[in-house]
């Protein structure tokens, strides 16, 4: 992330405001254009352009054989994608919403995740499964789940989730190019957030498996990902009023997990809070907290804390704000990091 001082290469596209949805759309477009084996399939991804318009215009540009409206059956979509991958194609599947992806779990767990291993490497599964996930958009039941822990508990899968416009583009390109399956979790409440961005900037294509320090700080580390990254950045700004200088680590890739970046940060700050939207019990934060304590115990000034959604089914939209970890809940946890010592 060093700031370049050398004269820039000939300018390509200028930076201009773009949404995460636009960046994802551009990533799909560029992947389809770059590699004829890439195929996009899912419910409503063709003519409509997806219910979130992430595939907008792709069917018109690449035709219905490259961008395919499938029958409404998630296991069938992913199951046929397995067969397409067996024949050398590189399918990009859209699950319309987080909770609609569950019918495909058997195909995912029993075949997508295991095929390379089962066949001793002769049958890789270069499949990307895009899943809009998380709450905060006023969705009714079954439209706001954070399902990352289910996928993370399945060896053979990679689990990736962007928090910025630039990462949305770069991580999706990298996921589609990966020879191993990727669960690509798109934080739907960040779809319409804008940032100045150009897809031609080299740093917009990060490697999978590398976390990034979004905000350097010295007092404590907030370890987070996806929709909770902006929450943590806002909390870090607010914390300056209390005299805390918080570091924010955006994991970007939950599997492969970047122990190195996380532990380097915690060893510097001595304190850590893991923040995510999904339920805490047996969740992603439990794994991260355990890893940090196993690796950084002698650097820790306080137990690693977690700020997560409650262990309840995702609430109805009029109650979701009581469930979602917000700035105050993050700051409350920071306050409990044994500063009196």
């Amino acid at each position: 992330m060093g700031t370049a001082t050398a004269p820039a290469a000939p300018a390509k596209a200028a930076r201009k405001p773009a949404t995460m949805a636009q960046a994802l759309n551009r990533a799909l477009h560029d992947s389809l254009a770059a590699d004829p084996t890439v195929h996009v399939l899912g419910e409503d991804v063709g003519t409509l352009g997806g219910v979130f318009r992430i595939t907008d215009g792709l069917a018109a540009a690449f035709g219905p054989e490259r961008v395919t409206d499938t029958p409404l059956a998630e296991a069938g979509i992913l199951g046929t994608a397995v067969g397409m991958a067996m024949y050398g194609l590189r399918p990009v599947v859209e699950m319309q919403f987080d909770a609609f992806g569950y019918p495909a779990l058997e195909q995912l767990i029993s075949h997508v995740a295991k095929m390379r291993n089962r066949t001793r490497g002769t049958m890789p599964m270069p499949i990307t499964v895009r899943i809009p996930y998380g709450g905060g958009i006023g969705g009714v039941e079954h439209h706001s789940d954070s399902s990352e822990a289910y996928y993370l508990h399945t060896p053979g899968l990679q689990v990736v989730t962007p928090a910025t416009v630039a990462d949305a583009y770069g991580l999706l390109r990298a996921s589609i190019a990966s020879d191993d399956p990727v669960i690509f979790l798109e934080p739907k409440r960040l779809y319409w957030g804008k940032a100045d961005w150009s897809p031609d900037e080299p740093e917009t294509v990060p490697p999978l498996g590398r976390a990034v320090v979004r905000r350097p700080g010295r007092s404590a580390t907030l370890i987070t990902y996806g929709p909770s990254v902006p929450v943590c950045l806002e909390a870090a700004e607010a914390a300056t009023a209390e005299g805390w200088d918080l570091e924010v680590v955006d994991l970007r890739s939950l599997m492969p997990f970047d122990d190195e970046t996380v532990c380097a940060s915690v060893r510097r700050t001595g304190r850590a809070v893991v923040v995510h939207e999904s339920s805490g019990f047996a969740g992603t934060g439990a794994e991260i907290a355990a890893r940090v304590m196993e690796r950084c115990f002698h650097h820790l000034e306080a137990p690693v804390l977690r700020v997560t959604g409650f262990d309840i089914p995702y609430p109805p939209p009029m109650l979701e704000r009581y469930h979602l970890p917000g700035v105050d809940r993050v700051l409350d946890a920071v306050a409990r990091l044994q500063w009196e010592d």
Partner: protein
Amino acid sequence: MARSSLASGSGKPATRSGKRPGTTAAARPETTGPGHTPPPGWRPMTDPAPLLPDPEPFRVLGTPAAADADPVLMRELYEALVRGRRFNRQATALTQQGRLAVYPSTTGQEACEVAAARCLGERDWLFPSYRDTLAVVARGVDPVEVLTLLRGDWHNGYDPAATRVAPLSTPLATQLPHAVGLAHAARLRGDDTVALALVGDGGTSEGDFHEALNFAAVWKAPVVFLVQNNGFAISVPLHKQTAAPSLAHKAVGYGMPGRLVDGNDALAVHQVLTEAVERARGGGGPTLVEALTYRIDAHTNADDATRYRDAADLEPWRAHDPLVLLENALRDRDLVDDAELRAVEAGAEEMAAELRRRMNADPVLDPMSLFDHVYASRTTQLREQAARLRAELDAEEA
């Protein structure tokens, strides 16, 4: 295929009340004007009549058609059946000797297994279930590699891309959408590859069966589904599995032809599958074939079939044995003599002896390979875990 008379424009529009067309004389609303123009009339998307299976299972053996059957094909099928039965017996024996963890036998179903392998061309793909070891062996894959799953030294022993055989699939019917996707991909790439997917009667109750057939029909994918209806899903008989007129009838609901065939008549299964494969190759789309057969052995060596069926139930099926049926047809036409039959038996014995010999060698195990193929390259975490196992192994050796 004949165009549907209904689809070609003679269908009557549905009434607003939802009554079936033709149920009343005044079904067709004639009123026009604002608020009175009916929507376009309902008509079936596909004429169901040509999709229906024959009322009786298709047979060749025991019919006049047997007299015209290709003698070379008959001899080859017979030899494959004899070897197939011997293979089943040898594999079951290997479970008793502890050389296989488990073996789901296809004794009684050899005609289906052999025909499934033989109806395919070199470029075609086979998608077997866990019971279809024999079909994969009959396709020419090294039997020791095929038995890797059931021996347990790895999950799959052969290279699917090189053999054009998908891994034996244990989760029921989950291999069917794979076959559809592969066939679809082949068509998109302009190849004339066909996929044949195997499933049992129990597997037709799974959601993946439904989704695979639906996708196949919508995409007109070059895929053939062979259901071996062997009467039981472990212990559960067909009447507890389905209320459909037959499993072949299920095809009609998806808009593809269903074909019913005597699964113990090797010539009939071979003919029906060959026709379905060539139909798929020619762009005609998928076919569902139901082969009526019987699982003579228990579900696996670990099962006790006496708990759910009587020995007497097997008698009619033993009399309708695929080997006996074909041998009788060969003898009826004087196509074989005793010496030839003995030679076929001897060849099968030789195959079994070779399999025994190879399976009696202990497989070479490499614990470190557990980490090799989880991902294209090991993650940091897997590198750490591999180092831990390496240290344990080194300590054991020291």
